[in-house]
């Protein structure tokens, strides 16, 4: 039970927790998303996140991790760690936690990122098509972007900073969601009927659990309990609070009502914005970032439903945009006296901003076109969405054969033996022509 010499117990203890916290974020996201849809699509929406837990964990262990984090070229890693080969207790170069734990931590990131994209296609995408999408996306898109900034890829080489995933997580999910919404197209009633969240308590609780998990997401991205982690952790408290305050103010100005769904959204936006920058900004600038990032996301969320773009749960606004703002903000306000790594433009290092800008150009492009191509490809193999009739029945019944809130009235027990009898009993009214 002795750990390898260079493993630090305190760092490892924290990273175990951080990993569990990030894992929790995926069911929390399922809950958050499920609250947003109509009750007839509740389970399907939640299941898209559960599916990510299933599919992406396996694909990431098989090849995703290796493609992201083993040696390769500037674009993509190799297959040295495929099927967890040589992923054991000995820490990776320069780290103080077991390699296996580092893998588990990274896996939870890929899982939630893939799950996030579901927000763009809920209430109409077929579940089998989404399963296939998860599989391909988690191999072809996430690992590439993770490699760029964390696995020794070209952005990391250039010096682009991304503390906890502005590139592979936030911008990737946001711009992938945009592509997914375009390929899968709008729900049939979108823009014609009011499609309202069926349970705002789930949304608020989901947001609360997400924030809780995000302490592991950002606080764990220093891979230990060093200063960077402490800073990232504290900023994850401060930035979303600032976002909330600004969001409240905008809501109040707009129509004198602070909304609960808006507050839940603000928590997510604040957490997203600070994600890339968490370990690089002073607490004061972290709060500024939280405040500033509220604005574009707020107005995109206001504007988007007026368009034909049914990017249903606004992943682009909440993740893509806020992540982009966070990445750029580093370029301005990174402070070497806090992060020990690099200054931003405001502290005299304009080059950092250039490096950040590069990420902001390349990531959306790769995520968007990658996702677009994947979904178009899957569309050739199988239909991407349910029929109009199925859509109006609701995906819970159609795709999963279940209802979220069953009462049992009118439910006739079928046993395998009485299949025949049941069929007779269940015969519908003969339809008069």
């Amino acid at each position, binding site marked *: 039970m002795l750990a390898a010499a260079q493993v630090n117990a305190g760092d490892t203890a924290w990273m175990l927790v951080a990993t569990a916290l990030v894992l929790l974020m995926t069911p929390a996201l399922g809950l958050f998303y499920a609250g947003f849809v109509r009750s007839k699509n509740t389970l399907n929406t939640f299941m898209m996140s559960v599916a990510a837990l299933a599919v992406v964990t396996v694909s990431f262990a098989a090849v995703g991790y290796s493609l992201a984090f083993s040696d390769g070229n500037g674009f993509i890693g190799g297959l040295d760690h495929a099927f967890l080969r040589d992923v054991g207790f000995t820490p990776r170069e320069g780290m103080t936690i077991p390699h296996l734990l580092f893998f588990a931590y990274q896996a939870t990131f890929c899982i939630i990122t893939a799950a996030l994209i579901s927000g763009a296609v809920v209430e109409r995408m077929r579940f089998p098509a989404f399963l296939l999408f998860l599989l391909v996306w988690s191999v072809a898109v996430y690992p590439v972007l993770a490699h760029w900034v964390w696995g020794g890829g070209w952005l990391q080489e250039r010096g682009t900073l991304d503390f906890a995933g502005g590139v592979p997580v936030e911008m990737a999910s946001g711009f992938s969601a945009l592509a997914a919404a375009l390929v899968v197209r709008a729900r049939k009633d979108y823009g014609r009927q*009011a*499609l*309202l969240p069926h349970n705002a308590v789930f949304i608020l609780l989901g947001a609360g659990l997400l924030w809780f998990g995000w302490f592991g997401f950002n606080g764990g991205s220093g891979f230990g309990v060093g200063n960077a982690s402490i800073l990232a952790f504290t900023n994850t408290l401060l930035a979303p609070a600032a976002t909330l305050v600004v969001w409240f103010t905008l809501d109040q100005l707009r*129509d004198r009502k602070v*909304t609960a*769904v808006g507050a839940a959204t603000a928590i997510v936006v604040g957490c997203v914005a600070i994600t890339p920058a968490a370990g690089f900004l002073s607490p004061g600038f972290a709060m500024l970032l939280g405040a500033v990032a509220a604005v574009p996301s707020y107005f995109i*969320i*206001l504007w988007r439903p007026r368009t034909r773009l049914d990017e249903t749960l606004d992943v682009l606004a909440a993740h893509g945009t806020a992540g982009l703002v966070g990445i750029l903000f580093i370029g301005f306000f990174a402070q070497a006296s806090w992060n020990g790594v690099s200054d931003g433009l405001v502290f005299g290092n304009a080059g950092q901003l250039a490096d950040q800008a590069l990420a902001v150009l390349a990531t959306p492009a790769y995520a968007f076109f990658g996702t677009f191509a994947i979904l178009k490809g899957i569309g050739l193999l199988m239909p991407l969405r349910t029929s109009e009739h199925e859509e109006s029945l609701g995906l819970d019944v159609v795709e999963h054969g279940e209802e979220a809130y069953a009462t049992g009235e009118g439910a006739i027990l079928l046993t395998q033996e009485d299949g025949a009898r049941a069929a007779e009993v269940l015969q519908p009214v003969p339809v008069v022509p």
Partner: protein
Amino acid sequence: MKLVIAIVRPERANDVLAALHHADVRGVSISRVQGHGGELERVETYRGTTVAMSLNDKVRFEIAVSDDFCDPTIDALLEGARTGEVGDGKIFVVPLERAIRIRTGEADEAAVTPVAG
């Protein structure tokens, strides 16, 4: 016999029940409905989606009574449900041909309010 249907405000439901009780009306079935009438719509916002809500929560009473009991029942409903503001609701009276108590199978007057008599 009559079937009296009343649509009232949810916050008056318990007052209506009490008023019916005092009027010796015992049997009653209630359900939640949503109504549209003279009340103002309220505007709600969910992220970027702004909607006008044209329905208000109401409670629907359904009461089978003997002919003699119809007016007392209506009086009790009016007493319990009235606030004087728009949205108080309506009472509808429909002819009732038969009423049957499931437990005993007994029919007509015996099955409706007043129960004993």
